């Protein structure tokens, strides 16, 4: 399989430099033991866009977003979120930065021992300390209504289906009004219909809450629905960056493997 040079492919990138950059990653490298997962990876996330990071399983996609929120420490390179370098932030500053970022886990990561309402209340009470109980209840109802699951308020996570868990997880992410949302494989393990519903929900969230998002996926349908821009990750490097149209029209064999 012939792999074209990344530098040449990057020339196809859409011109988005005029927009405000909310996340800027430069030459990010991350290894686990002798295995180099990310190699001098760079990207920019612009305000208000959905950036899809596409790649095979094990290509380092999840590692990338875990580095952005400081769950993993990078070996080298810089990660700037709203111009603050995550790699050098103090614990307190990192906490403050994390309040601006929502993270949707692949598994949903709902707290098993809490009801849906308690799951949503949990971050809200701790991040938005000034809110009164009435305001908290109203906010919870608003986000649950937005994800179409208002009737699940008192259910336990074990009583929810996979798609419902993802929706509730998304509700928990948006309940604290993050400016950036990082989606880790939002449609993995879901049937095609539910996958499309989640992808459309991602677009709704972007419009309603004016968020900027990085969507990690290998689901092409999800990428088609949500992407404003796509970066393909291959062997820890940015293989190609461009619009959905550029990817669909590409003759590159690696890209065709995904899109055709």
């Amino acid at each position, binding site marked *: 399989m012939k792999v074209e040079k990344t530098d040449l492919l990057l020339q196809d990138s859409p011109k988005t430099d005029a927009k405000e950059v909310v996340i800027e990653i430069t030459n990010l490298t991350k290894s686990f033991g002798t295995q180099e997962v990310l190699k001098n990876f760079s990207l920019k996330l612009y305000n208000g866009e959905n950036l899809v990071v596409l790649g095979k399983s094990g290509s380092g996609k999840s590692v990338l977003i875990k580095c952005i*929120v400081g769950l993993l420490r990078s070996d080298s390179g810089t990660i700037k979120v709203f111009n603050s370098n995550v790699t050098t932030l103090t614990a307190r500053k990192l906490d403050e930065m994390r309040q601006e970022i929502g993270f949707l886990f692949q598994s949903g990561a709902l707290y098993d021992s809490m009801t849906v309402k308690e799951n949503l209340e949990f971050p809200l009470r701790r*991040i938005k300390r000034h809110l009164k109980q009435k305001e908290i209840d109203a906010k919870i109802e608003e986000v649950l209504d937005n994800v179409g699951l208002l009737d699940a308020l008192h259910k336990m996570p074990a009583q929810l289906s996979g798609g419902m868990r993802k929706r509730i997880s998304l509700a928990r992410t948006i309940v604290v009004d993050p400016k950036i949302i990082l989606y880790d494989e939002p449609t993995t393990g879901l049937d095609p219909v539910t996958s499309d519903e989640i992808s459309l929900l991602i677009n709704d969230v972007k419009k309603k809450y004016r968020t900027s998002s990085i969507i990690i996926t290998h689901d092409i349908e999800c990428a088609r629905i949500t992407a404003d821009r796509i970066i393909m990750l291959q062997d820890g490097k940015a293989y190609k960056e461009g619009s959905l149209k550029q990817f669909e029209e590409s003759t590159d064999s690696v890209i065709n493997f995904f899109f055709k």
Partner: protein
Amino acid sequence: MKINIPVSKAKEIARHHTLKLSENTIAKVAIANNFLTDFADAILFITSFVKETFSRKFEVREFLHQCFAIGYKSLSLISVTGFIMGFVLTIQSRPALVSFGAETMLPGMVAVSLIREMGPVITALICAGKVASGMGAELGSMKVTEQIEAMEVSSIHPMRFLVVTRVLAATLMIPLLILYADGLGIVGSWLGANIKGDVSFVLFFSQAFKHVGFIDLLPAVVKSFFFGAVIGLVGCYKGYNAGRGTESVGKAANSAVVSASLLILIVDMIAVQITDMLAL
């Protein structure tokens, strides 16, 4: 990130790199490395626990919830354990005391044994099985299902919310459970004594507590707090540091029980030495 090297892997590395060290030496170095890594990890965990314990934002509701889960939900198990402890001790020791004509010493002997040693150690071991394994499994499964990471990215400190509350609740509730088990043990002892004898409840209790002084109670209560802390810390440490797969949840629970039980016995041994040195 903690990287433990399996001994077989270390031997393989040695073979591949044609190091001038025997496989045996490499294996020993790997074992030492893993031990030191675990030790350093445990120290970091305790340091982080202490730091978070004294932070301003204390999770009161979760602490009370854990007190309820550890204390109230262990009551039935501890009741049975305490009662049987006293009952069996009485049945077993009565014949020996009768042969020396010292049957009247039975309540005092049982009370002192229960309060000073048997009550704290056996109750703590039972709690290690119930509480430490529960913490190990719960936190381990939270780790596997990314719930701990979900807390971290929401800028909620999992150490503060999950660990501090559980360890402090265990430190507070285990001594109370031990005192409760001691009380029920004496009731069990009275019933045991009445199988072959006839002694009133009031007489039995007054005889029992005639031999028990503050000096018996103090070291027992002090070491009970340490037992509680050990159960909480070991249970949380094992769960918090569980691996990624579902298998690691079982391992965390199992290893929490084994390590906590072993540490309880070691703490007890040290406590007995200190008590002896202080002539308490």
